[in-house]
C-alpha cells in the first residue's frame, strides 16, 4: 500500500486492509534514513489471485523494512488469510484469526 524510500518518513494510523487480492507488501520502507511508524492496523480476509494459487508465492507481508530503514509498529491484528502465509518484517510468521483453509 505504501512505499517509503530516500529518507522519507511515514506515520500511519488506523490502517484497514480488507478482502485484498494481494500478493505483495502492505507497508514497505527502504533505505538508510527512511522511517515508518504504524499504529493500529487491521489486515482482514487476504485472498490470492487465482493465477498465483498454483505457484509458490503464497506469502503476504504486512511490513517490510530493509536497507537500514527504521520501522515501528503496534496494534496490528491479522484475520482470515485464506491459507496465505502472512509475515511481519519478512520472517515473523503471523497466525491468523479465522483461518479458512
Amino acid at each position, binding site marked *: 500500500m505504501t512505499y517509503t524510500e530516500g529518507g522519507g518518513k511515514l*506515520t500511519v494510523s488506523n490502517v484497514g486492509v480488507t478482502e485484498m487480492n494481494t500478493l505483495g507488501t502492505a507497508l514497505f520502507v527502504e533505505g538508510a534514513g527512511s522511517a515508518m511508524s504504524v499504529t493500529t492496523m487491521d489486515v482482514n480476509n487476504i485472498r490470492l489471485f487465482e493465477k498465483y494459487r498454483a505457484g509458490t508465492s503464497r506469502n503476504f507481508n504486512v511490513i517490510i523494512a*530493509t536497507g537500514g530503514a527504521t520501522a515501528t*509498529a503496534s496494534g496490528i*491484528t491479522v484475520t482470515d488469510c485464506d491459507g496465505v502465509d502472512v509475515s511481519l518484517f519478512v520472517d515473523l510468521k503471523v497466525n491468523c484469526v479465522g483461518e479458512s483453509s
Partner: protein
Amino acid sequence: MTCKKNVLWGLALVAATSHAQQSYSVTDMNKRAVPCPEDPQQIGYKHVIDVNVDQRTELEAIAAGNPTPGGYVFPFCNRFKFLMEQEILEVLLPEVTFVCGYNGLQSELCVLEGGNVQVKIPEGSQTNVIFQGMSFSGFTGTSVEAYASSTSKVTFNDAKFETFSNGATAIHQMNPQGGTPMQVEINKAQIENGLAGHLFDNVGGTLVSSELSVIKNVYADSILRTSAGGTSSIAGITATLSDLVVRPFLVYLLEREFWRPLYIQLVCVLFVSLSDLSVTSYFYIHVSKLVVSI
C-alpha cells in the same frame, strides 16, 4: 474544451435538487460563470477554459494595482463532466477554492474527465489552494501536478479519483526547481477502479491525509510513495478488493522458498520495535522491544 451532460446521474439529480441554498457564491470576478445546464438555479462554470480565463483576467487586474479580495471561489457546475483531453486547469491565483456545485460535496458530481494531466499548480503566488468535492476521472498521466514551492499548500476535501489507467498518478508532489515542494493535505478521498503507479507521490514534501479509502479494483504499485526526505502522515487508510503490489521487482522477498537466503544477503540494519501485537484469538504476543540486526 467541451462539456457534455451526463444523463446517467438520475439518482444524484434527485439528491442534489434537495439543496436549498448555494453555500459558495460567485462574485463580479467570476465573469464567465453561468446558470448551470443541469440545475439553472446554480451559477457556476461549465468550461475549464472559462475558469482559466477568469483567473488570468484577475491576475492582470492585480498587476494593474487593483486590490485583491480575501479569496477567490470558482464553483463548478454539478452533475457535469468536464472533458480534459484538450484542457488543463491551471491554478494561478492565491487563496483560491475550486468547489463542486452548491455545497462542495463529491456527491454533486463535478468530474474532470480524461486527459493526461488535468490540473497544474505551477510555481507562483498560490498560497492556499482548495479543491472542495471535486472528482478526477479517466486520467492517463498525472491528475494533479502540485509543483509550487513550500510556501504554498493545496487541500483536497471530499475528493474522488477513479477510472485512471496507464500507471497513472493522482497527485504528484514535487518542486521542479529542486527545493521543497508545496504541502498537500487530503481530507477524505475515495479511490476506485484503475491502474496506477504510485497514486500519491510525495517527492520531498509534506503530505497529511485522513480518511483515505481505496474501494475496489485498484491496481497500483502503491497508494502512497514518500521519497527524497519527504514526510507523510496518514490517519485512517482502508483498502478493499484491490491489488496493491509494492515493489514488484523485489518479489523475491515474497517467495517463501527464496526469501531466507536472500534476506540474509540484505546489507542492512533492521531495527524493529513492536508493542501490543495481537495475531490470533488464541494467544497474544506482547513484545515491548525487538531488535533484529543483520
